[in-house]
């Protein structure tokens, strides 16, 4: 055991140089690019999937159920590899051939595909948590389905969806590190390059990277706590986010 290496100055001193931080922060930039793109896209596709699943059109309902149940039961890393190798060979989407070789694109596609499936269930649970009386009232007022959703259901459901959605985004930020395996120059990869070149010790570089992830995710969870979360709800949301399942939304009252 060489515990002295843990605190040895020479293994830490690289962090006194600004260039090292610039190097790490360009990695953070890639991490955030992947995370923000996947968050934005998965909110859109997740909502569309939820509406498709809630709707009564069999042509939309069953494909949505199949997609959601299969995708969220698969490991994220599996999807990252699949969309990396698959993207290089190309997919045909509605007769149009699409392909990509950039690992950042593959990571965004994979994380969007996965998070959309989970978000769909969060949005669905949020919509189902709205009392039946409100829907009946909206109908009685003659609001068409789209307007009822936009004006009555979604604004209320949205507030209840925030804590589970934020838990999911914390999971997503952590999962961006998996893009390391396809050669993306995100934060974890940069940390690995630092210690592989003996600029710092491996434990030191990993610890600093961990602290950066911790700062982002801890701020996210602080933000989510502002939404009057009931005791236990945050925990359930978090564990569900980890598993890719959805905690049941408690009935009001």
């Amino acid at each position, binding site marked *: *055991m*060489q*515990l002295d*290496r*843990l605190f040895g100055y020479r293994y830490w001193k690289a962090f006194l140089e600004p260039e090292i931080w610039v190097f790490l922060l360009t990695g953070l930039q890639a991490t955030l690019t992947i995370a923000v793109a996947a968050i934005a896209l998965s909110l859109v596709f997740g909502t569309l999937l939820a509406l498709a699943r809630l709707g009564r059109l069999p042509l939309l309902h069953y494909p949505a159920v199949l997609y959601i*149940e*299969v995708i969220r*039961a*698969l*490991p*994220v*890393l*599996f999807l990252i*590899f*699949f969309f990396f*190798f*698959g993207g290089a*060979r190309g997919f045909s989407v509605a007769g149009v051939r699409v392909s990509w070789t950039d690992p950042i694109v593959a990571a965004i596609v994979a994380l969007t595909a996965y998070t959309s499936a989970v978000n769909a269930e969060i949005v669905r649970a949020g919509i189902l948590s709205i009392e039946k009386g409100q829907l009946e009232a909206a109908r009685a007022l003659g609001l068409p389905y789209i307007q009822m959703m936009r004006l009555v259901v979604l604004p209320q459901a949205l507030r209840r969806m925030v804590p589970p959605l934020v838990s999911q985004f*914390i999971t997503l930020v*952590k*999962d*961006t*590190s*998996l893009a*390391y*395996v396809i050669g993306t120059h995100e934060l*974890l990869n940069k940390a*690995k390059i630092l*210690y592989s070149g003996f600029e710092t*010790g*491996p*434990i030191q570089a*990993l610890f600093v*990277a*961990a602290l950066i*992830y*911790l700062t982002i*995710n*801890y701020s996210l*969870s602080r933000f989510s706590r502002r939404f009057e979360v009931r005791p*236990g709800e945050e*925990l*359930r949301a*978090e*564990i*569900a986010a*980890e*598993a*890719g*399942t959805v905690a*049941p939304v*408690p*009935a009001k009252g």
Partner: protein
Amino acid sequence: MERVIANLPLLLSGFHTTLQLAAGALVLALLLGTLVALLRVSPFRVLRVAGAAYVEFLRNTPLLVHMFFWVFGLPFLGITLPEFVGALLGLAFYTSAFVAEAVRAGILSVSRGQIEAARSLGLSYAQTMRWVVLPQAFAITVPPLGNLAIALTKNTSVASAVLVAELMYQAEVVNARTFATYETFGVTGALYLALTLPLGWLVSRLERRLTRYRSA
């Protein structure tokens, strides 16, 4: 497809390693997580703070960072573990933070009156935990723990990044050998689904059964 079928034994050997990794990490995560949960509800502030710091650090940092620490970090201190053991420890410690939160929520759900009753009967703190609180806490904790078992099963795939020859690793090998990407990933995905879908079904059944007689 024939080439993928010819490589099926490789995928199945990976599947076997995945199962071992998941089972080992799950047992260790449950043990560690329960210990940390006990820290978090202990009467001593120092222990509570230590428990909270452990949970916040582990659950807010990526699993891959933890695996790198056990597999590439420890040799720097003169301790070299086999990759399988390092990956298992990384996965177990990471998951233990979530287990701790689930068990703690279970413990807090047992009413104070019961604890006071046990203490006034002359049971020690440890005995109160062992005989009164934990058995009841676990009933409430089962559904979230089931969800964590699913998460852990999916997360075993991350071990491929530290060169453990589990299912995901072997899928990459077969993909590189055959160039049959869709077939290889189809078979691999089916193997993962064979684990996670039945587990998910079981957990949602349990969840419904355990909450049937309880008001929220």
